[in-house]
């Protein structure tokens, strides 16, 4: 139909973008940090993680102080985070990404920053920062508990945290966070990703264990495909070169591969 009624001068109008600078990465990271705590659910997840870490340690402290046959060290306090940070940090990692889909804010995020890799990398950076923060909080809480333990218990206070253990502890928390993030990218759905992560953490090692006990060939394959198993020596800071090889191969399967497929999917996805 006719367009002749239109005023012609508009046709030449173009957008002058020469004066606009692209959104700096640091600004995206700051925004993503804010998005992690600016809702009640996000804030309480962070607070709960810290609170649970403290609660588990306090229970441990109470047991250690009252039971004669239990003696605790700094490292045993730190290991108690297996029941707090190790479980909740991956959930934080999952929600960092999936909440954009469940709440459909990805539409806004990706229209304000169409360079999707920048947005995802900013979220990943926030995940790493939160994991580091969790480790710092755990170190401080464990130190507090260890000092109190020295006061209330007759056992000597043991500060046993070598560099290898500390490095292993940090690496484990980072892996937990990143695995959650990878599963989230793969599934883009909060409940599905959380269930998948829990099965991977609590059910799969058992199945692998049964398989290894029943079949000899599987027993020799297991270290190469069971990422949880391969992380065992990391906890005890006894990694041998062969352990590192197991760690790398199983980590590729359970961390790198899902992360790569998931990110590729997010970059190409139609955002609704």
């Amino acid at each position, binding site marked *: 139909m006719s367009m002749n009624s239109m005023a012609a001068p508009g046709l030449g109008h173009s*957008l002058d973008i020469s004066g606009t600078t692209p959104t700096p990465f640091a600004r995206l990271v700051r925004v993503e940090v804010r998005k992690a705590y600016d809702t009640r659910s996000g804030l309480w997840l962070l607070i709960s993680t810290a609170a649970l870490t403290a609660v588990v340690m306090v229970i441990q402290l109470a047991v250690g102080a009252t039971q004669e046959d239990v003696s605790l060290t700094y490292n045993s306090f730190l290991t108690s985070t297996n029941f707090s940070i190790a479980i909740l940090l991956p959930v934080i990692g999952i929600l960092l990404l999936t909440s954009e889909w469940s709440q459909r804010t990805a539409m806004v995020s990706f229209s304000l920053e169409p360079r999707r890799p920048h947005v995802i990398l900013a979220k990943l950076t926030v995940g790493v920062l939160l994991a580091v923060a969790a480790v710092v909080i755990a170190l401080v809480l464990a130190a507090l508990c260890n000092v109190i333990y020295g006061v209330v218990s007759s056992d000597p206070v043991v500060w046993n945290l070598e560099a290898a253990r500390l490095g292993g502890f940090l690496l484990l928390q980072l892996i937990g966070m990143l695995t959650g993030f990878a599963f989230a990218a793969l599934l883009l759905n909060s409940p599905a990703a959380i269930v998948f992560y829990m099965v991977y953490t609590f059910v799969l090692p058992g199945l692998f264990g049964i398989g290894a006990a029943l079949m000899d060939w599987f027993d020799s394959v297991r270290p190469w495909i069971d990422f949880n198993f391969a992380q065992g020596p990391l906890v005890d800071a006894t990694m041998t070169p062969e352990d590192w090889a197991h760690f790398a191969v199983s980590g590729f399967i359970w961390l790198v591969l899902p992360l790569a497929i998931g990110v590729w999917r997010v970059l190409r996805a139609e955002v609704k």
Partner: protein
Amino acid sequence: MIQVEGLTRKYGSFTAVDDVSFVCQPGRVTGFLGPNGAGKTTTMRVMVGLTPPTAGRVTIGGHLYKDIPNPGRHVGVLLDASAQHAGRTGREILEIGARTMGLPATRVDEMIELVSLTPQEAKRRLRNYSLGMKQRLGIAHALLGDPSVLILDEPANGLDPAGIRWMRGLLKGYAERGGTVLLSSHLLHEVEQIADEMILIGNGRIVAQGDKKSLLAGADGGKASTLVTALDNTALADALTAKGFTVASAGEGLRVEVEPVEVGRTALEASVVLTDLRAAEGGLEDLFLELTAETQREHTA
């Protein structure tokens, strides 16, 4: 200005947008009109890079959206007012947008005031917002970066009549200052009141485009009709029928299938006093329904 060139988007064997081309000019409000599922939203999503096109492209001021740095400063987008975190307050949603774009915090308060949300409402969480409030917030979000192009999908949806009048004033003013506005709707009356230019889409295809006058002129050879009321309706009806025009009673007056000028002339000749004479607006609505119904039948057959 927005330029859509040969845009096609297919989902498997289903073609959501089929070879669509149109232009939105600066200084004008362009209405994108079509029934639900006609392809309006898909077209707008392709514009801002959320949906990859199967063929064709969209440029905004000569650039692909993804090539515009900090695009919120140039293009204001509102695709779905509900697509925000339900647990964030209205103010926080704007705050996040302003920070992403690198704007001062004062901009947030300005926008809240511009869209007439009270400070108390801005402190409420989005899950407690009515659709009309979400739309106001969404428009505030789109205007945050002081863009020169606005892309709004169904912005009037959920607004009350006063809200629609407010938005009309806002968008007209925005266009008069040189801005480009594209807004979609499935309601003719909304678009008709706001838009200078209209693009009608049905089943992924553009079925008509132009301003209101040219659309009506092009509809079935310009079949116009007139609503007229006279002191003596019977005398006027007789005179019109004698000239061969189709006359039917409508409310207090008559509906005549001819242009108003012919009715006026007949009244003058018959010496009948008119109290009301105007073109019946039904033409555009008939045209809209006819055009879109046709395209719908093609696909359901």
